[in-house]
């Protein structure tokens, strides 16, 4: 049976067919749907972990105990899980151990454009890269088998266009893979120096075996079209190249992007006059070829930035121009993402901007608080950094600066890595104010449950982390809960807490407007009491705009009736219809 499947869903299907026992992940675009799709299979234990490091360690434990296990993350999530990954390379795998990591060329939903292939090289592991959904499924299955065959964790590397494209997948039955025996093996599983020194020898020997495997395995394929031009590529770039160049060139399609073969590349190149390496992001394959002494054309013809297109490849390799088209004669307004109508964060940022505070920001929907007219966020670095970076800011700029400084961090992000920063503030005598934007869900990645929601990934009720007692237990005595839609009260609370000479936490509590349980009655309308003061425009609500005559209007198709504007209007000119 063939099914149209998202690349991410196909990775989940591959893991299912490979008999995976456990999947633990933290959500992150574009990887989230892998783990969400695992939920479809009742045979598999699946969970959202508090962060990627925990998720990877859960999977590693499951593998050591003899089960097949997987952990999935986005490229920056791999930074968080890197610590256990480098050492489990030494330990290896008892049950097959797979890490699925999704890069985001073009940064559709990310804060950087890092290339995860470097991690496979740096950790001396193995990495496969599929180019469509069918390969997502097949390579994931292969990854489990290879993991056990070579006693190694195996990466499956995806990119946004593979993760988020649907193509046809042949569905198979689940393999019956019994959980392997667990045998205590200190020399393999306890990585203290005496044992690790010996395991490093093993890792280097294993690497040589993998190189030999890369030369001969049926994963890497040569497509000889009798051309004098050769193209070496992997992943989505293969699909782009095929579309652009068809059978006008020869292809070396690398399914295994680490370790890379040597003889295979040399032999392929020797039959061509010109060889191109086509790869988004870093010159990873190109540098390998050049180190082998193979003269390839890479980044001198292609960019390091963003996503590639077939048109770009046709131009670079065949000097063909793109298709005829009618271009725009003048620039048109951009449409950047915005906080949704009814978003609880809008009220928070409205107040923070009004008070002129410096805002140490974090990763989530609320990063959009950086955009006009709210434009209140000063910094965004990585998950959790809002709290710890603000501590650093306060320590170098002093007390007065700190009284005009807040951190903003979502509930899930706070659990992920904000709590450690808060402990640092308390321990090292900081007096920061941290605002936890508690919208009762992990928002940006599409509504995943987390330890503060009281539900598991399967929707089962579980213990709920209480943010108030959590913050108090680490030594924060001032913890205030406030609904940001009560704008006046919220403003008062922010003023009081930023003025305090000790650490404080404000839990800004209101659920995400997109949650099914959130229903606001009616739509907001502007009445003739409007004096065109445009204060409501400062909310940056996508439903409110001003026409050419200065008349303020609310677009009923956009308004969700949250009523925030009603509370902000000084003339009571906005009412519910």
């Amino acid at each position: 049976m063939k099914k149209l499947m998202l690349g991410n869903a196909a990775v989940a299907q591959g893991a299912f067919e490979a008999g995976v026992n456990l999947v633990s992940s933290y959500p992150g675009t574009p990887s989230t749907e892998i783990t969400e799709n695992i939920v479809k299979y009742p045979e598999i234990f699946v969970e959202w972990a508090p962060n990627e490091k925990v998720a990877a360690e859960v999977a590693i434990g499951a593998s050591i105990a003899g089960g097949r296990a997987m952990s999935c993350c986005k490229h920056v999530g791999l930074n968080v899980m890197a610590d256990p990954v480098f050492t489990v390379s030494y330990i290896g795998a008892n049950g097959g151990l797979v890490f699925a990591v999704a890069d985001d060329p073009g940064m559709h939903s990310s804060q950087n454009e890092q290339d995860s292939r470097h991690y496979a090289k740096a950790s001396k592991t193995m990495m496969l890269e599929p180019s469509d959904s069918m390969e997502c499924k097949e390579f994931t299955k292969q990854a489990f088998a290879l993991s056990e065959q070579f006693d190694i964790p195996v990466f499956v590397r995806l990119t946004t266009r593979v993760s988020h494209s649907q193509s046809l997948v042949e569905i198979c039955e689940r393999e019956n893979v019994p959980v392997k025996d667990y045998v205590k093996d200190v020399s393999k599983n306890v990585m203290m120096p005496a044992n690790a020194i010996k395991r490093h020898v093993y890792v280097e020997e294993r690497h040589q075996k993998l190189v030999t495997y890369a030369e001969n395995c049926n994963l890497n394929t040569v497509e000889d079209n009798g051309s004098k031009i050769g193209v070496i590529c992997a992943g989505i770039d293969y699909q782009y190249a095929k579309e652009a160049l068809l059978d006008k060139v020869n292809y070396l399609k690398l399914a295994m992007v680490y370790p890379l073969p040597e003889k295979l590349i040399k032999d392929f190149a020797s039959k061509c006059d010109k060889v191109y390496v086509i790869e988004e992001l870093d010159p990873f394959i190109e540098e390998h070829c050049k180190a082998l002494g193979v003269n390839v054309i890479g980044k001198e013809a292609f960019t390091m930035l963003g996503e590639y297109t077939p048109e770009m490849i046709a131009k670079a390799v065949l000097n063909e121009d793109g298709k005829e088209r009618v271009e725009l004669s003048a620039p048109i307004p951009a449409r950047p993402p915005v906080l949704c109508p009814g978003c609880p964060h809008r009220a928070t940022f409205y107040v923070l901007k009004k008070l002129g505070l410096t805002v140490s920001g974090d990763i989530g929907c609320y990063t959009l608080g950086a955009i006009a007219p709210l434009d209140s966020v000063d910094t965004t670095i990585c998950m959790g950094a809002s709290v710890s970076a603000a501590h650093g800011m306060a320590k170098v700029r002093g007390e007065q600066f700190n009284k005009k400084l807040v951190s903003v961090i979502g509930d899930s992000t706070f659990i992920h890595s904000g709590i450690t920063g808060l402990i640092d503030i308390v321990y090292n005598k900081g007096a920061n104010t941290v605002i936890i934007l508690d919208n009762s869900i992990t928002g940006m990645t599409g509504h995943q449950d987390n330890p503060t929601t009281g539900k598991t990934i399967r929707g089962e009720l579980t213990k709920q982390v209480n943010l108030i007692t959590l913050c108090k237990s680490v030594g924060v005595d001032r913890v205030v809960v406030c609904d940001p839609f009560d704008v006046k009260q919220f403003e008062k609370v922010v003023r009081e807490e930023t003025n305090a000479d000790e650490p404080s936490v404000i839990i800004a509590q209101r659920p995400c407007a997109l949650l099914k349980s959130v229903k606001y009655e009616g739509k907001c309308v502007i009445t003739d009491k409007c004096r065109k003061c445009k204060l409501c425009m400062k909310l940056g609500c996508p439903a409110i705009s001003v026409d050419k005559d200065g008349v303020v209007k609310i677009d009923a198709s956009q308004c969700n009736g949250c009523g925030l504007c009603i509370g902000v209007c000084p003339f009571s000119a906005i009412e519910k219809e």
Partner: protein
Amino acid sequence: MSTKNIMIVGVGGQGTLLASRILGNCVIKEGYDVKVSEVHGMSQRGGSVVTYLKYGDKVYSPIVGKGEADIILAFEELEALRAMPYLKKGGKIIVNTQQINPMPVIVGKADYPTNILSTLSIAGDVVALDALSLAKQSGNMKAVNVVLIGVLAKSSGIAYEKWIDTIKTTVPEKFLEVNLKAFDAGYNI
């Protein structure tokens, strides 16, 4: 068959994903190779969203390049204009005449372009309709996506019944009646 390229463009939250799923599930029944490229994550939050759908004997790239789209299904006028360079010579652009102001327009840093439909007609055949009103008449403002799928279905060469079957298997049961009405509203314009 040579590959058919369809682009679905709109504003995050307008339901472009469901439209592409219905379309994808329908053409798969015709036995074609299909690829659909979607947008998830931050861009979904009220930003420009683009979905590509390609089908034919063999599809390689999941994305549609400039000058390659046979059909553009636009959920909003400004997004139709943004997608115009992707239209193939002689291609068709189906436009919902709804206008949603982007933030640069709301904050007064840019003007919403005027005469979009006549600009589009230079690039290809324009089919313009008020899908929002048709969706409201069908019982739910959010059914704009299925109204537009109805318009596209009419000239797709795929039988009406196959579209109906696909909607039945793609849309949740409780929204089915509204969506079938919305589909007919688009199909019969």
